[in-house]
């Protein structure tokens, strides 16, 4: 293999380029990214970055060591098609890239709310530019309405509240975070909003966004958002709206490539796709998890950081599985209202929850999820040390499950 194209230049893409060199590959590496900025760290974007003077440069993921990797950067251009036979990638700038191996790491984008087109003051949060725009919007004061009480929405609500803004959170589901955490623990996490006086309205989907100039004839551009109307008729005044309703994998460009895409590019446990010499990693990939016996698309930082090591080994070694690192145990964290939330494992609906230590009401506890009497996942609030022990223990069991 003499040339590898890595499509996607965020954490997963950069980690893939680093892994290629770390595993002895000395051919050409092209790193293609649709953003003009070099790779940066996204987790801070929903946190203090929004209200601090942190510069974009401080978020850079690259270091001086990366200069020696010999990466041919192709930033500011989007991959628009993959010809699998020739492994040729068409770019939005009119060029194309042919490579012996392809790493697909195109990530995901924020899901948008229909009807917000052309309305100012309505934000999603995924990129650094998104965060800078939201930061500017928040500077003009509240009220802020956060649509979606997931992790991104909750972190932004907490950050804005701490900065003195009037914040309301609305959630379409009856219980926030029930998907990743289950209803019990979802409620516990959602309780953080009430602890800090931030209203959380659940089970109330948004009907529409209201803007200055509503009622203007069609064709007139709409003004700034001024409110959020819920399906029960409630109107929440808003100077800024953050839409945090999940992410969509960036896989449209792969249409016609022959890859199977089902909420992400399907891969086996070692990141191999259905096409030879093409692997997929990070938010855009739905990888087979042997321990869970299903494909899982994981949108977490640690996953994007670690998984490329496996993908690159697959790309370079083919079917030789020796030395391949095991699929890492899913892990994510969140910080809201000064509380550190950490989760690791593979929770499924029906798992029971046992409080191992502390008290959820104190926002300082460790909960263990169990299935058939065996631990499957662990959730902690402000219990890092104990959490680390459990995470380690779960990871041991996770990797020893026969495949």
């Amino acid at each position, binding site marked *: 293999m003499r040339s590898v194209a890595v499509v996607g230049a965020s*954490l997963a893409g950069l980690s893939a380029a*680093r892994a290629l060199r770390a595993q002895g590959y000395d051919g050409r590496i092209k790193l293609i990214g649709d953003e003009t900025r070099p790779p940066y*760290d996204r*987790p801070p974007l929903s946190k203090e970055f929004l209200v601090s003077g942190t510069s974009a440069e401080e978020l850079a*993921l690259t*270091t001086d060591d990366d200069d020696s990797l010999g990466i041919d950067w192709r930033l500011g251009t989007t991959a628009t098609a993959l010809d699998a036979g020739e492994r040729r990638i068409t770019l939005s700038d009119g060029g194309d890239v042919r490579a012996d191996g392809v790493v697909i790491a195109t990530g995901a984008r924020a899901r948008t709310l229909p009807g917000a087109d052309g309305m100012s003051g309505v934000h999603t949060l995924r990129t650094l530019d998104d965060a800078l725009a939201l930061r500017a919007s928040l500077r003009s004061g509240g009220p802020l309405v956060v649509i979606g009480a997931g992790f991104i929405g909750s972190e932004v609500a907490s950050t804005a509240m701490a900065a003195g803004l009037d914040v309301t959170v609305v959630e379409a589901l009856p219980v926030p975070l029930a998907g990743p955490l289950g209803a019990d623990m979802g409620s516990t996490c959602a309780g953080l909003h009430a602890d800090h006086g931030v209203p959380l309205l659940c089970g109330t989907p948004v009907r529409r966004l209201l803007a200055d100039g509503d009622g203007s004839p069609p064709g007139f551009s709409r003004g700034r958002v001024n409110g959020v109307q819920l399906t029960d008729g409630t109107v929440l005044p808003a100077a800024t709206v953050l839409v945090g309703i999940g992410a969509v994998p960036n896989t449209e460009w792969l249409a016609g490539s022959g890859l199977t895409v089902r909420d992400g590019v399907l891969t086996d446990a070692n990141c191999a796709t259905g096409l030879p010499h093409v692997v997929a990693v990070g938010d855009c990939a739905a990888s087979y998890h042997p321990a869970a016996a299903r494909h899982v698309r994981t949108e977490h*930082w*640690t996953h994007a*950081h670690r998984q490329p090591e496996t993908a690159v080994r697959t790309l370079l070694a083919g079917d030789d599985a020796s030395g391949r690192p095991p699929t890492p145990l899913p*892990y994510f*964290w969140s910080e809201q209202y000064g509380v*550190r939330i*950490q989760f690791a494992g593979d929770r499924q609906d029906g798992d029971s929850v046992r409080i191992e230590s502390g008290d959820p009401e104190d926002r300082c506890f460790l909960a263990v999820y169990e299935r058939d009497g065996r631990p499957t996942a662990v959730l902690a609030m402000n219990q*890092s*040390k104990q*959490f*680390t022990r459990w*995470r*380690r223990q779960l990871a041991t069991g996770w990797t020893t499950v026969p495949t």
Partner: protein
Amino acid sequence: MEHTETLTHHATVLVACRIEDLPPGESLRIEAGNGTQAVAVFNADGEIHAIDDTCTHQDASLADGWLEGCAVECPLHGACFDLRTGMPSGPPAKKPVRTHRVSVEDGLVHVHVAAPVGAL
């Protein structure tokens, strides 16, 4: 536990614990006092190491971290530091943590905490 402090040349010597209280794979956090940073002490497969406890990326205690070989992974964001050199091995941390000399005397783990940068 109480830590005995002795000031020597630009280093504060702390008695961290008894050696048998820090078995392989374990770690503990000790306050260096005097407004200096806390220190994390590790037993990595029989080798005792001491580094600054606070991750250089964000405020998290490395003593709470995941010890693997001669590296500790920050419990929060997964930044890894080499316990021997303090160097980060990958994102999100980019700056090293300070390392501190360790000695074991009469069954007690002594940490020779280097003076904070700029204090000399």
